[in-house]
């Protein structure tokens, strides 16, 4: 315990010794991670977790998470990490099984913040029905990190043939989304220091594997799915158009969006189509299966506000067009970088 007494942690913050591999590291894991995240795979703290993989194919993904502030209305970096990883597996048609979790902590991070983030990881993992199978922590010096950064990997079981692929998209297919857009990006911006606008917007961050399983189970011919995260709905629509060399026509009036999100976007000069989501999936289904797919989505709590938002046509190859609320038309392109609020 000499390390603990010579490196005071009484002020409740992360110190370099937490990442030193010694007693403080052991205690950090034993006292702050295992009680909340522990399971048969993680708790033995072996160098690797051994997972039973059913014969067949597995999906694997990795992701890195940085966000400021670490906690924002509707979520935090922990929930973001779990949901983001789960969603990347789910949109491929995989059943998420296990995650890895590597945390890079910055010296000075409040332990209370870390505890809340770990609580949130545990809650999101339970919600998604996945376990954290293995993990790691490192500590970097003050000003060399961003408070807390998380890297994950995820493994999922492919339960059937991979049938979702952009080359199966055909003219006449329709695009659906499971609910209102732009809420994550706007909620994070509203919480960011310096950007003062009052809003009751909350991030939509959520694990979508349940919703997607319900959709795939309904028998609709799902051609392609992608979660609309950074780059927003516009980026996914552009992916659909480019990968299929077909045209996507979005109907602005049909795209679900709360009044609050619309006003916040206008105030900041942002195009809501380009603003990030963390709990929205864009689904392309065969036109004949539209109502079946929509009904399946609406029956799930995360799809209550699902809507048909566009269709695939042959009008102009690899182009996304928006039929605006005013009845006009314009192009939709993926954003070029981070969209910044305007000056005036």
């Amino acid at each position, binding site marked *: 315990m000499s390390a603990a007494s010579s490196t005071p942690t009484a002020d409740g913050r992360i110190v370099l010794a937490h990442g030193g591999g010694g007693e403080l590291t052991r205690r950090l894991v034993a006292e702050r991670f295992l009680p909340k995240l522990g399971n048969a795979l993680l708790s033995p703290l072996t160098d690797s977790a051994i997972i039973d993989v059913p014969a067949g194919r597995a999906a694997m993904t990795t992701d890195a998470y940085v966000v400021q502030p670490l906690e924002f209305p509707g979520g935090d970096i922990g929930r973001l990490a779990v949901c983001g990883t789960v969603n990347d597996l789910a949109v491929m048609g995989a059943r998420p099984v296990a995650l890895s979790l590597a945390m890079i902590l910055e010296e000075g991070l409040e332990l209370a913040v870390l505890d809340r983030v770990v609580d949130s990881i545990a809650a999101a993992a339970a919600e998604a029905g996945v376990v954290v199978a293995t993990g790691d922590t490192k500590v970097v010096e003050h000003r060399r990190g961003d408070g807390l950064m998380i890297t994950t990997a995820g493994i999922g079981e492919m339960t059937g043939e991979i049938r979702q692929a952009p080359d199966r998209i055909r003219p006449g297919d329709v695009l659906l989304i499971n609910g209102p857009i732009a809420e994550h990006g706007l909620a994070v911006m509203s919480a960011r220091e310096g950007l003062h606008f009052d809003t009751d917007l909350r991030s939509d961050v959520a694990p979508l594997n349940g919703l997607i399983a319900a959709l795939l189970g309904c028998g609709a011919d799902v051609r392609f799915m992608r979660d609309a995260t950074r780059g927003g709905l516009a980026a996914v629509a552009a992916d659909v158009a480019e990968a299929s060399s077909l045209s996507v026509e979005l109907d602005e009036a049909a795209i679900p969006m709360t009044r609050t999100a619309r006003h916040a976007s206008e105030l900041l000069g942002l195009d809501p189509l380009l603003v990030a989501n963390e709990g929205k999936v864009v689904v392309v289904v065969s036109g004949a299966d539209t109502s079946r797919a929509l009904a399946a989505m609406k029956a799930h709590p995360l799809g209550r506000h699902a809507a048909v938002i566009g269709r695939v046509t042959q009008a102009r190859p690899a182009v996304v067009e928006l039929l605006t609320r*005013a009845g006009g038309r314009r192009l939709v392109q993926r954003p*070029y970088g981070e969209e910044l609020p305007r000056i005036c």
Partner: protein
Amino acid sequence: MSRLEAGRLAEQLRAACGDGPCVRLMEVCGTHTVALFRSGVRSLLPENLRLVSGPGCPVCVTSQGYIDAACELAMRSGVTICTYGDMVRVPGRHGGLEQRRAEGADVLVVYSARDAVRHAATHPDRQVVFLGVGFETTAPATAAAVLEAGARGLENFTVLPGHKLVIPAMQALLAAGDVPIDGFLCPGHVSIIIGAKAYEPIVRDHGRACVVAGFEPEQMLAGLVRLVEQVRAGRPRLENVYAVAVREEGNPRALEWMYRVFEPADAVWRAMGTIPASGLAFRPEYAGFDALRRFDLRIGGDYDPPGCRCGEVIQGKAEPRDCGLFGVECTPRRPIGPCMVSSEGTCSAWYKYGGAVTAGSPAA
């Protein structure tokens, strides 16, 4: 807003235009430029109605000399530059603030002038310089920040003055007479501050139609209908279809702040040169907050990057597609001129919403 209502207004606009000669209207404000594209209103316009973008994008009208001065200041030791995000990417003679930041300069993006004051208060060891750019929409906030810094006795806060006034630029464009403009769609945001009455000289002295409009599609369409009706009737006047937000007198309190701290002064506009009394300089009693004085700095001459036609674009003399760099060498990813950098810039709006991935004609 309903598609029905917008459709009705678009029909009205077509009827007002009839089959007469082409009507040329300038939307002065960058926010209008973007909103006209983003809402699809541009695609609803009849062929004999041309919309020309004006000098209303705050970043775009800022002279290269100002950008270079900001870059020079950023490299001085102990200086922190606080700026609105769009300014960071504008290229200067030797790269812009983005490059200076990569070289170690302390450049901080803020969302308001007050944030810069707060930063100065919490960083007494730094000289915090706020880049004061923008029109009457942002100038009162800069003035309020200066007043706050004064009240708090902050000696490490200054402003690099670059604010501009809308009306003198419109007058200068008309006086030059080389751009045919029948009327102006006047900006909602600026008008909230300066008031609808501010446009009276444009109507009285220059005989041009002026209609103040908001940024919703039906507000812009209603404004365009009124403008075309005035032009066709040959009776230009001042109208306000945004009366819900814009008063005749504007916002006296904001104007009082602005003119307590600043006074009108000649200002250099990108490519338009020096326009008399078109900018804001510090009044003598607030000169202590003037970064030019504190750092003994001069704002150098203006110039366009080679091949760049932003200067003509902001005056309505050229459209983005007339520029050889547009969409080829100059894109939002690698902007050469400010009109492609700013989210309010005309080139950026044409590129994003008009679909010109090459220098060809966009589907506007």
